[in-house]
């Protein structure tokens, strides 16, 4: 339950490099955060900032270069995902699953939907009888809102939203505790997006799930997450409770990112903080603070010294030398009336 502050995942100094002959791309460097059970943590950032790589490292779909991912199983001692042996990992895989971005390419077109949802069961419970498996599949398919009589069909017969439900059912059939959602709703239409987000929230309440929700869509992340982490060039630059982060960002990058979100309200004037240029090459990152080349508050120190990722307020982590000094603008939260128009603070 949300109030139960039991830690479920702890990610410490996670690093992933992709070395090639000439250069080494530091896709994820020194990312640390912690997640409680039943929480949703949103990860945002521009494309190429390493958020997907980070998610994949957490589930050990790809091996991380260094760092640790401490997982607290329901019973027993906490384990480090990155170092435990394969057999034990296989056992624990049931607890941590992934939902992928593109519902069109993440489902095998030659398998029926029933087989797709069943596959995790056959892989993890070879002893289970066929009837029992199918019962479980039916159960979960009903839960995610798939018509059970359609399960013998192939994925091409389903629409995007339905396919994403299939992907969710596949992730849920093992009764996991943590789900990494990698851009789970980005490929869907707005009205379908809302359906799937509602579904994810319902399932979370029902099954006490923990989500790592990776997305580039800030409004979706703001809606679904309890905590949000902002990544830039492979590093976590800010991590805080959702409302704290959105109402009072401490990192200039977070501020710029939020000012670029188009608001579905013609009365709100877009007052964007321009970000100069583009993301630097992660194989050859700038000196000092990675963000200093595009930062509007850049000082001499930023060009030389890499800022420490530190806690400026309880639960609010920032990697900026001047996090306490800037008065950065965020979103103004309306407390009283629902649906009332918000304004951005000047």
């Amino acid at each position, binding site marked *: 339950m949300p109030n139960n502050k039991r830690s479920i995942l702890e990610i410490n100094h996670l690093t992933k490099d992709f070395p090639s002959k000439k250069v080494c791309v530091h896709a994820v460097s020194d990312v640390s955060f912690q997640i409680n059970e039943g929480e949703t943590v949103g990860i945002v950032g521009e494309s190429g900032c390493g958020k997907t790589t980070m998610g994949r490292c957490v589930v050990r779909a790809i091996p991380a270069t260094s760092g640790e991912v401490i997982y607290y199983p329901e019973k027993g001692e906490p384990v480090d995902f990155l170092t435990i042996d394969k057999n034990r990992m296989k056992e624990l895989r049931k607890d941590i699953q992934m939902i992928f971005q593109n519902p069109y390419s993440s489902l095998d077109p030659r398998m029926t939907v029933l087989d797709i949802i069943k596959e995790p069961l056959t892989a993890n419970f070879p002893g289970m009888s066929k009837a029992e498996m199918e019962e479980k599949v039916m159960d979960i398919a009903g839960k995610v809102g798939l018509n059970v009589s359609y399960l013998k069909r192939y994925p091409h017969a389903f629409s995007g939203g339905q396919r994403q439900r299939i992907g969710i059912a596949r992730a849920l059939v093992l009764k996991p505790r943590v789900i990494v959602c990698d851009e789970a709703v980005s490929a869907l239409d*707005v009205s379908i997006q*809302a359906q799937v987000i509602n579904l994810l929230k319902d399932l979370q309440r029902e099954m006490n799930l923990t989500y790592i929700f990776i997305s580039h869509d800030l409004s979706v992340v703001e809606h679904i997450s309890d905590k949000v982490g902002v990544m830039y060039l492979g590093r976590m630059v800010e991590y805080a409770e959702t409302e704290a982060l959105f109402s009072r960002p401490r990192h200039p990058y977070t501020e710029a*990112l939020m000012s670029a979100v188009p608001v*579905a309200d013609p009365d709100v004037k877009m007052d964007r903080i321009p970000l100069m240029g*583009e993301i630097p090459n992660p194989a050859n990152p700038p000196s000092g603070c990675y963000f200093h080349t595009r930062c509007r508050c850049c000082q001499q120190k930023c060009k030389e010294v890499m800022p420490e990722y530190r806690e400026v307020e309880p639960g609010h982590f920032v990697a900026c030398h001047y996090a306490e000094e800037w008065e950065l603008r965020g979103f103004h939260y309306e407390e009283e009336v629902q649906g009332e128009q918000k304004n951005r603070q000047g």
Partner: protein
Amino acid sequence: MEEKKIENDGKDIVLDVRDLRINIEMDEGTLTAVRGVNFSIKKGETLGLVGESGCGKSLTSKAILGINEKKCKTTGQIVFDTDGRGMVDLLSLSPKGKEIRQVRGKQISMVFQEPMVAFSPLYTIGNQINECTRLHITKDRKKSREISLEMMKKVGIANAEKRYDQYPHEFSGGMLQRALIAMALVCNPKLLIADEPTTALDVTIQAQILELMKELQKDLNMAILFITHDLGTVAAMCDRVAVMYLGKIVEIAPVKDIYAAPAHPYTQGLIGSVHKIGTKKEERLFSIEGTVPLALNLPPGCGFYERCGKRIEGVCNVKEPELTELSDGHAVACHLCGGCQGCAFGANSGEEAKKDAE
């Protein structure tokens, strides 16, 4: 082919689409992809065309340029204010003829959704932008290079001289989209069709591109048909919005009205399903149940009937609602709202509508 001269009462109208219908013959039957769409765009105006995938918005825009596939049977009128010839029905022109080619790429141009796909990987960016200028403006290579370079600088491509001779794979997504916009604008078109120009881009880049388009629109006084499913960008970009559903425009209004008082249940649903940052957290987002039906063998009545939360049996599934004007410039196709003075959406009694239907 001889083009028809068509009267035009509005003075500044650049494009007037009248009763556009597109049918696609398929093995399973005829797919009615666009079912009688009417709209017009004025000089310097941005019209947003909003809808979910499969609602026919892309087909509509491609029909304007005459670049739909052959199997798309298009009827209706697409009247465009051409340079020199006055109002011309583009549909009456041969899709491969000389006349339409003078319009296409020069007077009307298009920015496509995925910049990575829209460019040929085999030619340099400069070469591809040049194609347009050399076809329409000058045959002189040097001059055409100058024009292209100038446009590349205008859209904010740094180091244009160097970039000119680079290939698309050397560009990032945002830069490619800029190059695509440069290519579309190099001939100073009267109308720019932007088909989801920022969907594939990051928010920061998206904001840059939107601002760029707005600036260039001011400079060139061109009209923009802005196709998207993102209501956030619509609010930032458009003067008027047309909401499409199942091949029809169900609501068309000035952008303020659409957000302040959406009249069609579908529009209401679309706006409701977008979460606004900073509003009080509701547990659930409003969502429209079901999905867009396939436009094959459509039943009579309103296309939104199956998914509508306010449907009235015996009315909505019997007669198709017409687009009726509510207030100045705000029209909606819904039995619940049509012609009812000062009705706060849905307040109109179903009884009245029932009588009408009978």
